[in-house]
């Protein structure tokens, strides 16, 4: 039993150390500045129309956040050097654990930006009063909004991480392919209406445009809609991460 506790403690320690390392590496560069600046501008454009629907604003914000996190995932792959990666993979005795730590770092970043969106919304209500949103805000709005934002962010960073140099060798191709996939994610429903057979290929693209359909016309978040959205986004992120992990472990250095 003591051995199990010691091993679990060691795992938490090195995982915490790895995540802190990724955070410090990323924020020591200026690569986060542009995605964050663009997101703040997007957020401003969403909240410049008053009164705005709560569900509508969170869905729009989650779609923008998806795009920004794709960008962040790509820049996070730029930051890590192949030799540093080798040192760390050997140090933690597992490529899987190393790549999990990178995913968790991006999940934490996504959670932080999602929190920023909610705090911004709260501040808007405090500053502009009840006229800001089309109805009074409920606690459930922030809870469900956070789930939607976080999972959209997770999908975005998972897609961005597929630009890793050992998955797509040429940097230019990696950026083009990933941004094309991100653009398709935004217009997928329209594309499927025109070309239904493309479902065969497009199932792997994150279900971001589906969010507009799921929450269309809703004044309040419903449990059914949130559950459906959460299931789709989680499944998509899981598939993308599984692809990433499989390819990275198979295609070693």
């Amino acid at each position: 039993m003591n051995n199990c506790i010691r091993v679990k403690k060691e795992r938490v320690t090195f995982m915490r150390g790895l995540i802190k390392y990724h955070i410090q590496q990323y924020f020591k560069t200026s690569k986060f500045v542009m995605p964050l600046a663009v997101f703040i501008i997007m957020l401003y454009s969403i909240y410049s129309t008053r009164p705005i629907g709560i569900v509508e604003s969170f869905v729009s914000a989650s779609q923008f956040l998806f795009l920004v996190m794709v960008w962040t995932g790509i820049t996070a792959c730029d930051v890590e050097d192949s030799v540093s990666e080798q040192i760390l993979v050997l140090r933690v005795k597992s490529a899987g654990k190393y790549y999990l730590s990178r995913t968790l770092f991006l999940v934490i970043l996504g959670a932080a930006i999602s929190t920023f969106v909610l705090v911004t919304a709260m501040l808007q209500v405090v500053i502009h009063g009840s006229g800001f949103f089309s109805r009074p805000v409920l606690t459930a709005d922030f809870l469900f909004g956070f789930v939607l934002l976080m999972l959209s962010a997770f999908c975005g960073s998972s897609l961005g991480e597929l630009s890793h140099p050992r998955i797509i060798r040429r940097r230019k191709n990696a950026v083009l392919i990933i941004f094309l996939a991100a653009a398709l994610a935004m217009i997928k429903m329209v594309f499927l209406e025109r070309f239904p057979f493309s479902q065969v290929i497009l199932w792997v693209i994150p279900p971001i445009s589906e969010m507009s359909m799921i929450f269309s016309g809703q004044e309040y978040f419903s449990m059914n809609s949130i559950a459906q959205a959460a299931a789709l986004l989680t499944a998509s992120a899981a598939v993308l991460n599984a692809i990433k992990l499989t390819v990275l472990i198979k295609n070693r250095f």
Partner: protein
Amino acid sequence: MKELIKLENVSKKYDGRLILDNVSLSIYENQSVAFTGHNGSGKSTILKILAGLITPAQGKVIHSGRLLFHYVPERFPKTNLTAGQYLKRMGQIDGLTHIEVEKKCNQLSRDFFLEDMLGTPMKSLSKGTLQKIGVIQALLTQPDILLLDEPLSGQDVDSQQVFIKKMNELRKNNVTILMSCHEPYLIKSISDTLYVMEHGKPVKGDIGNLIDSCSDALIQ
């Protein structure tokens, strides 16, 4: 002696060129193995295959359990972190407490004449200083196997002596050392087994007869 790593009929090609040709080799606990040879002869490749960083095109690599490797690469990467920040993070990943990391970093940086450079961003450090950081990060805690790829590249003579002393201390603590290098005096100082990479195969060399010219290493 316990066998730690076994290569069975391992081959590796890069861009159609055969780097390793049907190599079979065993590495034992507490061995200190040096691989030498011409540039491009496969020294770094065989180190990386032994560590499991590269998959061979053919053959098997067998490890006796999950081994802890600490790796000193040939060219340590430049990052935006300061040397101190980087070493602190490596120590934390190794499971050291804040106080232990601080103590170890200070001691090792003193030993390698780096005390004044811990606050400098790594991207601003010289090649030799960066390589010292590479060595220090590998010495923060004791690994099962120490992987050294041209570890003395760009280092001053005093630091080289410190390095040799540290390596021999690790050998006394049962650490296995796998090294790729060109310097005969380094091989003589810390290795007990020598392989010369020739035509894709590691050929056992005679350390006792090694003279100060890497291309003249005598083969048994």
